[in-house]
């Protein structure tokens, strides 16, 4: 097994045992980025100096007798998380040249635990999108088929891990932005309970929904990353003060006694036949591992997308008001400050960001607030209640992660059809429950094998249960083991239209 193919678990174990140095792992990851990132485009910037300095520090700590949970593990950091001294752009023109003067809490925890920051990964601008195509600063391709999107918005982090340019990708998930690229890139994409991971230093899209989480090639790695990055942060008022139960210690290999809810409203008949077959098989696989499948209902689940596309834009319309050309970032000069704002934001934001800021501004504006924003907040109450009721009858919920496999770049030009990409993932975001996608098989389309993800969700704080179930499923099925062609250096499809 090549060094870059190793899991975070293996790397940390070997670096801690001094069988391997962080320097060697880092050099291998940087070399892999050099070799494949020209095609994949996972990183906006590879941070060579930062990575090597971090590796030297980790090796020194190990040499001094320390043991680090993630010693020497190469990390891709989504470029909406601040890392001191690095450019942190949100893949936006408005922050293209901005250097963060502080580090996000979650990133700091990963670095303190021994991770090596290989680079800052691409994303849909301000994390708004489901394909990574809304990046203003670069194109990212799916390592399993370079003609296709890696998913979004954490597409760069996902592609980096799938292309073996990192072992752990840090992503952020607002309506599916970790789980969907996880599914598209044959990875584990894990969004913890809202409030479990500090948002301090994560550039906000929608504050009440944003949550940081890992993208990894194995469930164990996701659990290890979660154990490190989670926990209370006094710098984030919405950070949960309760203790985190470690998820990576005891990962079961079967699902005996587990009640898995299958959501009635998520009708598999609505999917393409090849996909339906995969999910029917996935449910059967869960059952064969000892789980009891139970029928549950999320009555308001079909309102999720509408609810989400009012709440998230409303919050983002205020969150993005700070990008005004006054204190940092892009300024387009003008004779008066009002024109300066309007030109700066016109040139600094891409179309999807403008769309969402406009819809959010509208939903909050005088005369529409009650009809749109308040109604969406009430619908959110119902969405949360749906889950509370369903989790009375089951321990976890299983569903498709996406409604289609990775699509070709440029295939979805209509904003609303892109919004529907998040149909399966949004309800869990609205309810704030932990959810992940885990590889569950392949569909063949246009001579390519395309990965699909199974979404599992659990009640608030039940991360250990959720990760345990995913681990058992992964160990029994092994879909995640297939290496991406891009990582193996045998990629095709780059010629396809962008």
């Amino acid at each position, binding site marked *: 097994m090549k060094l870059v193919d190793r899991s975070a678990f293996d790397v940390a174990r070997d670096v801690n045992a001094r069988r391997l140095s962080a320097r060697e792992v880092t050099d291998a990851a940087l070399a892999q980025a050099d070799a494949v990132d020209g095609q994949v485009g996972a990183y906006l910037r590879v941070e060579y100096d930062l990575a090597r300095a971090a590796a030297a520090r980790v090796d020194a700590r190990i040499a001094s007798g320390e043991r680090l949970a993630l010693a020497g593990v190469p990390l891709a950091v989504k470029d*909406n*998380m*601040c890392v001191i001294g690095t450019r*942190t752009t*949100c893949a936006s023109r408005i*922050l293209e040249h*901005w250097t*963060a*003067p*502080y580090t*996000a809490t979650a990133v700091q925890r990963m670095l303190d635990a021994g991770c090596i920051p290989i680079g800052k990964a691409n994303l849909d601008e301000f994390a708004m999108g489901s394909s990574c195509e809304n990046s203003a600063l670069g194109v990212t391709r799916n390592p399993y088929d370079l003609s296709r999107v890696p998913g979004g918005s954490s597409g760069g982090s996902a592609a980096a891990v799938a292309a073996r340019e990192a072992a752990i990708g840090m992503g952020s998930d607002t309506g599916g932005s970790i789980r969907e690229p996880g599914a598209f890139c044959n990875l584990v994409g894990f969004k913890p309970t809202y409030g479990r991971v500090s*948002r*301090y*230093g*994560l*550039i*906000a899209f*929608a*504050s*009440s929904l944003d949550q940081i989480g890992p993208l990894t090639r194995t469930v164990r790695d996701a659990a290890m990353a979660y154990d490190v990055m989670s926990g209370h942060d*006094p*710098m*984030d*008022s*919405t950070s949960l003060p309760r203790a985190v139960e470690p998820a990576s210690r005891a990962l079961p290999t079967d699902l005996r006694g587990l009640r898995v809810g299958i959501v009635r409203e998520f009708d598999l008949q609505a999917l393409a036949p090849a996909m339906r077959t995969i999910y029917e098989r996935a449910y059967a696989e869960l059952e064969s591992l000892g789980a009891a499948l139970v029928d549950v209902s999320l009555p308001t689940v079909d309102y999720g997308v509408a609810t989400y596309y009012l709440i998230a834009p*409303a*919050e983002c*319309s*205020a969150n993005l*008001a*700070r*990008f*005004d050309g*006054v*204190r*940092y970032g892009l300024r387009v000069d003008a004779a008066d*400050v*009002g024109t300066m*704002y309007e030109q700066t934001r016109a040139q600094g934001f891409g179309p999807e960001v403008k769309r969402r800021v406009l819809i959010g*501004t509208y939903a*909050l*504006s*005088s005369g529409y*607030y009650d009809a749109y*924003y308040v109604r969406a907040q009430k619908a959110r109450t119902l969405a949360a209640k749906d889950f509370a009721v369903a989790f009375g009858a089951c321990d976890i919920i299983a569903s498709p992660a996406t409604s289609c496999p990775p699509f070709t770049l440029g295939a979805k030009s209509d904003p609303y059809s892109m919004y529907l990409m998040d149909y399966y993932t949004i309800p869990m975001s609205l309810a704030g429950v932990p959810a992940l996608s885990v590889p569950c098989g392949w569909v063949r389309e246009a001579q390519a094998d395309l990965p699909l993800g199974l979404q599992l969700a659990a009640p608030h704080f039940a991360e250990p249960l959720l990760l345990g179930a995913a681990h058992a499923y992964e160990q029994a099925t092994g879909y995640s083991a297939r290496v991406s062609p891009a990582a193996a250096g045998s990629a095709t499809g780059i010629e396809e239209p962008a």
Partner: protein
Amino acid sequence: MKATYEAVVGIECHVELKTRTKMFCGCANAFGSEPNTNVCPVCLALPGALPVPNGVAIEQTVRAGLAFGARIPAYSKFDRKNYFYPDMPKNYQISQYDMPLVQGGEVRYWLEDGTMKRCPLVRIHLEEDTGKSTHAGSGDGRIAGSLYSLVDFNRAGVPLMECVSEPALHSAADAVAYLASLRRTLMELGVSDVKMEEGSLRCDANVSVRLAGEAALGTKTEIKNMNSFRSVQRAIESEVDRQISLLERGERVVQETRGWDEANGVTHPMRSKEQAHDYRYFPDPDLVPLEIAGDDVERLRVGLPELPWERFERYTRAFGLGSKQATQLIDTPSLARYFDRVVNASSNPQQSANFVLGELSRLANDSGVAVADSKAEPEGVAELIVLVEARTVNSKIAKELLERMWRNGGSPKAIVEDEGLAQTNDADEIENLVEGVIAAHASVVADYRAGKSNVIGFLIGQAMKASRSKADPQLVSELMKKRLR
């Protein structure tokens, strides 16, 4: 017959809280620092930074509410108020919209003649201050005609409490008395410096007029840019006059914001913002609700100090002080506390007020040291009052003693005993002194007898001098007159 009009005034105050740190971050809340030094990712609204509320600011706001007898709702929250302005980093202000920390209540205030009145409050809420812009290029520092602005973000994020009164004040004098009482109360609570000149107290007035006896409110204007109590008084008077003149001429008052022009003594319409006021308030998703428990409210209520209006009633009713003296004492909380200790030890409120507001305040003025910070202990002052009342020392010695106590402290009684400064009340002894003076100044005595009666002051002075000021001046005067008759 000329109609009679009634003014209707409501006051909105912004009060900067005196916390160590800002409302949502750990930067210093300090006036007068070097520009752009008290700033961090949070108050500069750097990407990714998040607010965490200052617990002391919340507590201070609740205490202010309790001091005004207001209701503290069990549930409160912060909202975002959205509008763009260069000195407001997030381009929204974290404020409170429909669920303020404090609801209702009233400010009790009194007029110069001591009449106690009440003005109900609508609410008090907590928000964050903006930075400060300096407008350049217009020559006069004003925004109109300026070419550019320079921004200092030190003040951005300082906790700001907004107190909104009902439109229940009916004259400029009431408005100023209301403000004075609000200010005294907040000072007594120690929650703010409440200095208008430093901007830690800022106020706007809503002014309308209506025919006396009418129930409906007239069209109001909002007056801004008032920088002192005196400008509040003048601005309201001027605006009330302007509105009455309009109505008298059969014209209408236009609802608008007007700025007070101190130099010319008039209000001007202010150019309205080009942008519509559509603030799009919504609950701040970066913050969680505030649920103030009844027990906590009770704890804070019990811990309230005596409030200025309560003190005023005690001073005027129980102590019998005049309104002016009572107000003077109350206006400096440390002086009032000092006074209370003097009274406590002397049991003589009137003389205590006279001493504290007279000689002691003069010494304070001369030295620049507050009475409460001087070496003169209130108990010592009380001792002195007792000595004066018992005519153990005369006023001249009393003054000297006070000066010594101011500098060095100590017990006046002990000083008097140690140095034999007790007043001489012995008629025989004083008669001897008088005889001596008359013998030594025969020509002056002759002048007196010839009708120059004012020279008696000189003779009395000589006798006092001979006694080393210890003689009872009244007795000296009496005996001198008797002897010369």
